[in-house]
Structure formats: C-alpha cells, structure tokens
C-alpha cells in the first residue's frame, strides 16, 4: 500500500475521532450482541437451573421428613392401639375366666349339695330299712327265745339287752 501522506506525531483530527467513535460503538454492539448477551443468557440459565434443582431437592427433603414424621406418628398410634386392644382383651378374658370359674364353683357346689342330700336321703332310707330289719330280727329272736322255756326274768333281760344293743347301733 502506498501511503499518500503521513500525519504529524500529535494531531487532533475530527474525522479520526468521529470514525473511532463509530468503531468503538460498533465493537461495543458486536461484543454485546454476539458475546455478552449470549453467554450471560447461558450462565443465567444455568444458575437458574441450579437454583431450581436446589429448591426441588429442598422440597423433596422436606416432604420426606414430613412423611417420616407422619409414619412415626402412625406407628406410635398403631402401637398404642395394639396395647389398648391387648389390655381390653386381657380384661375381657379375665372377667370371662372369673365368670367361668364362678359358674363352675356354683355348679360344683350344686352337685355336692345334691350328692349330700342324696346321701342323707339314702341314709335315712337305710336307717329305716335297718330299723325294720332289726324289728323283724327282734321279732324272730323273740319267737326263737319264746320257743325255749325261759324264765320271765330271762325273757325280760333278754329283751332289754336286745333293745339296748339295737339302740346302741
């Protein structure tokens, strides 16, 4: 390139100033439009995404904590309920067993009483029978004695003895 002219070392040239101003503005627009806007957008997008994912993770953790607390509560309640059921069942079983035992006792007592009554009755029957038999025996003995010749005294003594013996029996 052949230069037509060389300027002075230090000149203030309005044309150069205006053109440099234009150049600077063009470079500014180029950098802003083609570099900064694009890269800033990408960086901001990424930061937003990271913030978003952090927020999501926080939310998920909170949710999980809530769920765990809920489960804990539920399990506690279930345990309580179970204990309650067991206690109620125990009480019921106790009362039922008491009832059964009482019933059994009453029944046993009834049976024993009946048996005693029976025994008493049987005894009475037996005593009456024995008395009848004794009387029969006495009659037969008397008749046997009467066959022999005995004194009045002997007779009386014999009868008295007999009756005493029977009475003792």
């Amino acid at each position: 390139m052949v230069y037509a002219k060389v300027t002075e070392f230090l000149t203030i040239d309005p044309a150069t100033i205006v053109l440099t101003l234009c150049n600077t503005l063009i470079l500014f627009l180029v950098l802003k439009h083609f570099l900064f806007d694009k890269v800033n957008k990408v960086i901001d997008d990424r930061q937003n995404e990271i913030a978003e994912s952090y927020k999501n993770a926080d939310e998920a953790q909170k949710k999980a904590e809530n769920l765990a607390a809920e489960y804990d509560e539920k399990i506690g309640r279930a345990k309580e309920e179970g204990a309650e059921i067991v206690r109620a069942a125990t009480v019921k079983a106790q009362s039922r067993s008491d009832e059964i035992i009482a019933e059994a006792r009453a029944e046993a007592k009834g049976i024993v009483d009946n048996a005693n009554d029976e025994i008493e009755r049987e005894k009475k029957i037996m005593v009456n029978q024995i008395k009848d038999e004794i009387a029969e025996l006495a009659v037969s003995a008397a008749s046997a004695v009467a066959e022999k010749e005995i004194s009045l005294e002997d007779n009386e003594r014999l009868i008295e003895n007999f009756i005493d013996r029977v009475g003792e029996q």
Partner: protein
Amino acid sequence: MDGIGQGPKVAFTLPIFGGIEITETIVIGWLIIAAVLLVCLFLTRGLAKVPTKKRQIVAEMFVGFVNNMVETTMGKRWRHYAPYIATLLVYAVLGALVSLLGLRSMTADFNVPLTWALMTFILITFYKIKSGGPGGYLKGFASPIPLMLPLNLLSEVATPVSMAFRMFGNVSGGAVITSLIYSALAGLSKLAHLAFDVGGVGFNVFQLFIPAVLSVYFDLFSGCIQAYIFATLTMVYVSGAAEEE
C-alpha cells in the same frame, strides 16, 4: 530514523465532504472489529447449558472476568456496563498488540484515547446530572466555596485529558523507544561489521532477538496494563459520579 515521531499514515482519502482522510488507525480498527466479530461468532457457536466445548469455557471465562471486574469495582447493579468495559479492554489491548504484527499501535494515535476519554467524560457528566439534577451539577462546581470554581472546572477537564495522555504517552512512548532501539541496534550492527545488505534489504544481526524481549515489556505489558487502568478508571469515575451525594 524512519517512522520515529510520526503520526499515523493516511491510508486513503474518501472523496466526500472535500476529502476525508482515512488514517491507518481507522483501518486497523476495522480489522480489529472484523477479527473480534469472527472470534465471537466462533466462541458462541453451539452454546449449551452444560459446557462441553473448550471454546464455550473460554467465552465464559472472558465474560465472567469482565462481569466480575465490573461487579467488584462498580457494584452489582452496573452489570450492564460489562460490554462497554469489555469493548475498551479488547480495543485497547488489541490496538496496542497490533504493533507485534508490524502495524502501527492504534492507541499510539492520540485521537483514539482522546475519543475514549471524551466518551468517559460524557458518561461522567451524564451521571452527575442524573444523580444531582442540572442545578446540583452546576452547583457542584462552586463547592465548597465559590472561589474554587476555576479549580473545579480545571479538575473536571483534567480527568479526560489525563486519561487520554496517560494511555497515549505509554503506548506511543513504547513505540518510540522500540524504534529508537531498532535504529540503535542497526548502528551497533554496522559498528561491529554485522550489517549485511541482502538484495537491497538491510539486515542487521543485533536486530534479531533483542527487540523481541523489549517489546514484551513495552508493547505487551504496558499495553495490557494501560488498557486495564483505563477501564478501571472509567468504572471508578462513572460509578463515583452516579453515587455522589
């Protein structure tokens, strides 16, 4: 002493308004814009939410660096300033680094830092008027006592002028020193009989490696630091102007 102490060359003249001279500076600016546009298009191709490609990581690193710089210096609500700061950084760094390609440093043309300083000045004034109202802005010049008016005016103007001269001085100083070293090394080569003339092109042995080492300081380091400082000062001034009172 070719090229020392010269301004940018005129690349061509636009035949409108009686001929507008387009200097090297503007042409280099166009080249930088084209390169930045291509790099941006390449870096942002196929952006994904989960970065898998290296170029997306590079793009995000750069954007994150500028965003972080703006947020720590100006505050969170100034994040929309990041592209402007990035523009200043990229333009200033690349403008200084083109000297490594043998072109003239763009920021060694006083008009370029002057333009940016004027932009910063306009932003400062805008935010001062916005935060304090036009009356408050004018009253600010006469505080704390009306006697300070000339000094306040001077310091107001000194801000962009000092910013412009700081950058221009550093980069053009680096360029001047580099070319001085080149010519000195050429002389040294001649003294040591190590200068050859290969087919009409001068070839000096001492010019081979030494300038590269020095260029790392005067072009790379100085250019980057000045770009960073210019951007930082812009941020500090603008956010300071908006948060006054």
